[in-house]
């Protein structure tokens, strides 16, 4: 280890190696125009990346020899029209809970990228134990006990990365991803060797009786997990923006040094944030298994976390603000899965769209920030790199 390493490392071991998304704070302080204009600006910046991504995706579809209008028509048809909006809301339940779980850690400038392992481990606890627990007791008790268990298991899975980060500054991006992969494998082993349904040969758990699944919201086919997700969003919006915990979290997120000066224990904060994040992801898993699937088989990995990544940023890490974005993606994914199958494109096409949104999001944010600050769109060094050869060239021409 060189001396420069230690000099910039804060005494409590939290290194600030990750760039904060500082565009946000600059945006707030430099903007002088009316609140309405500001609100409009936020909406424009959030919608533009999605529109651009959809346009490019349409071009890709054209290149693959598919009709993009037909594809998008099928997306709307299967995601929204008739009774299909209910399917989208069912899908939205775990996505929204997961989004809030990510928002909490991202606000603290910590990266929990181990959502897949946490989600599946939480899910396997529910799917593996629910059928028998429901028989032994009652559905109500099973919902309660297993949801708590799923939350605990998923939260526990974040502990090692959180502890390494808090006490040794080990990069949590890497450790959460590694733990996630272990979690995915462990889930498969649990299904195959512990929770295997003896009645079937394929590796899968027993299924919850359709009658014992989470009850629907009256008048719909949407399980009440959806209401849980909305409530959690509202509660976390309040906690993050109106309580002292939320303020401390934001201080911690903007500067670990400042946080220490005002008496925030960054070690505790790091671990607490990870546990909350994991817990919410466990809740998402529980609601998803109880509400939608009822069982789990091996190698099932919906990868919800990767899919919603762009939308938590587009919502500027606001739980309630993320609702419309997650709703949009739920419709897009629900309809898009069917549309992809109908048109013969791999379902992984949706991943390309997500990636496009991410890229356009960062670019839009960049352009917007530069415009707000009245800065040039190109960094100095890049301009020099372009200008010097250009000047040399034009200079030679003049001679």
């Amino acid at each position, binding site marked *: *280890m*060189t001396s*420069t*390493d*230690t000099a*910039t*490392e804060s005494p409590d071991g939290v*290194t*600030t*190696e*990750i*760039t904060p*998304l500082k565009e946000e704070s600059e945006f707030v302080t430099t903007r002088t125009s009316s609140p309405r204009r500001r609100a409009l600006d936020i909406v424009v910046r959030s919608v533009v990346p999605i529109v651009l991504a959809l346009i490019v995706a349409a071009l890709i579809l054209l290149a*693959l020899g598919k009709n993009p209008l037909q594809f998008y028509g099928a997306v709307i048809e299967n995601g929204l029209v008739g009774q299909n909006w209910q399917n989208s809301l069912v899908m939205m339940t775990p996505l929204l809970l997961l989004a809030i779980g990510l928002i909490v850690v991202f606000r603290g400038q910590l*990266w929990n*990228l181990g959502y897949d392992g946490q989600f599946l481990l939480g899910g396997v606890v529910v799917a593996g134990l629910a059928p028998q627990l429901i028989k032994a007791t009652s559905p109500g008790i099973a919902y309660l006990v297993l949801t708590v268990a799923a939350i605990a298991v998923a939260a526990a899975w974040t502990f090692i990365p959180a502890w*390494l980060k808090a006490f*040794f*500054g*080990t*990069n949590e*991006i*890497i*450790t959460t*991803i*590694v*733990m996630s*992969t*272990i979690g995915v*494998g*462990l889930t*498969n*082993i649990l299904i*195959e*060797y512990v929770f295997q349904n003896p009645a079937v040969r394929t590796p899968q758990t027993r299924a919850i009786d359709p009658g014992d699944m989470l009850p629907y919201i009256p008048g719909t086919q949407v399980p009440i997990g959806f209401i849980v997700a909305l409530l959690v969003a509202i509660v976390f919006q309040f906690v993050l923006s109106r309580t002292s915990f939320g303020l401390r979290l934001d201080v911690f997120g903007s500067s670990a040094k400042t946080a220490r000066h005002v008496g925030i224990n960054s070690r505790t904060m790091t671990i607490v944030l990870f546990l909350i994040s994991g817990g919410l992801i466990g809740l998402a898993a529980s609601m998803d298994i109880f509400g939608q699937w009822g069982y789990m088989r*091996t190698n099932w990995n919906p990868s919800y976390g*990767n899919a919603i*990544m762009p939308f938590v*940023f587009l919502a500027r890490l606001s739980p309630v603000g993320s609702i419309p974005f997650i709703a949009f993606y739920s419709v897009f994914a629900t309809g898009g899965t069917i549309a992809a199958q109908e048109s013969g*494109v*791999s379902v*992984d*096409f*949706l*991943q*390309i769209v*997500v*990636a*496009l949104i*991410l*890229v356009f999001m*960062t*670019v839009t*944010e*960049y352009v917007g920030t530069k415009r707000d600050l009245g800065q040039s769109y*190109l*960094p100095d*060094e*890049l301009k020099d*790199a372009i200008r010097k050869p250009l000047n040399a060239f034009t200079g030679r021409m003049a001679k």
Partner: protein
Amino acid sequence: MTDLLTPTFITAFIIACLSGAVPLMLASIGETVGEQSGVLNLGIEGVMLMGAYFGYVVALGTHSTWLGMLGGLVAGAATSLVLLVLNVWLGLNQIVLGIAITAAGGGITTVLYDQIYAKTSPRIPTDNWKIPGLSDIPVVGGSVFSQPAMFWVSLLITVIVAWFLVKTNWGLSIRAAGQKPSSLDAAGGSVMRTRSQAVLLGGILSGLGGAYLSVLATSSFTPFMTNGLGYIAIVVTMLSRGKILRVVIVSLLYGLTIAVGTVLQLTSLDVPTDLITMLPYIVVMIVLLIFGRDVNNSPVLGAPYTRGAR
């Protein structure tokens, strides 16, 4: 167990070990160069998949594994251009871009493969170079000295990169850009240019690693075939702390766990396959817990450089 220790078996074991290690080694060296210059390329998984797919396509089309490797190289470089332009030049968030590249790499290759090859899934004929004389040695001859010629090129690349990183001004610039970019800037170097070169080289090596995996190690392409190898490369880089020799050793250890996993599957022992896939990750986690606690990446790793910013 004793009947397992035949020369044929040991030969197969060494082959499994090496073909598991080399793709990871190439990608990890690429990632090391990037991280030494201060750029954390989280999209390496996507870059490898692009390299693997396009290497496969070119090798199929041209019937040449060499051109296939070249195709992987170009695809890797092209994919890393996204990171180069958006992160190194414009300073956009590396982690978000890394996730985007991973998603895009997986999505693009799977969509294309499904569209074109899924029904036939053609294989590439193997193209091993039996070194005259040496390949006649029992055990080692059939394994180490009958590798694809690219194996030796990879080793050569490793040595060259290691030498350049440590012994040349270029290597010094790279490390300066990763430790204290402002000092490189003050000394008249260009952080942007240095990091651009590092990212491009990283993309090239990761693309080669991906192509090695599809064209040479498995002779075929399957969607998401890297299966987290890109993330392992990031971990290897983290554990090696910029020392190429350590990258090689850790990669070989990884190859060993892969080979052990294959052996365990061959025996009649009932070992879950998932345990075998988890094995390298568990090893990594244990290593991190025991040795990696004081892993301190460069303070500017992941931070875009803005001249004059504090």
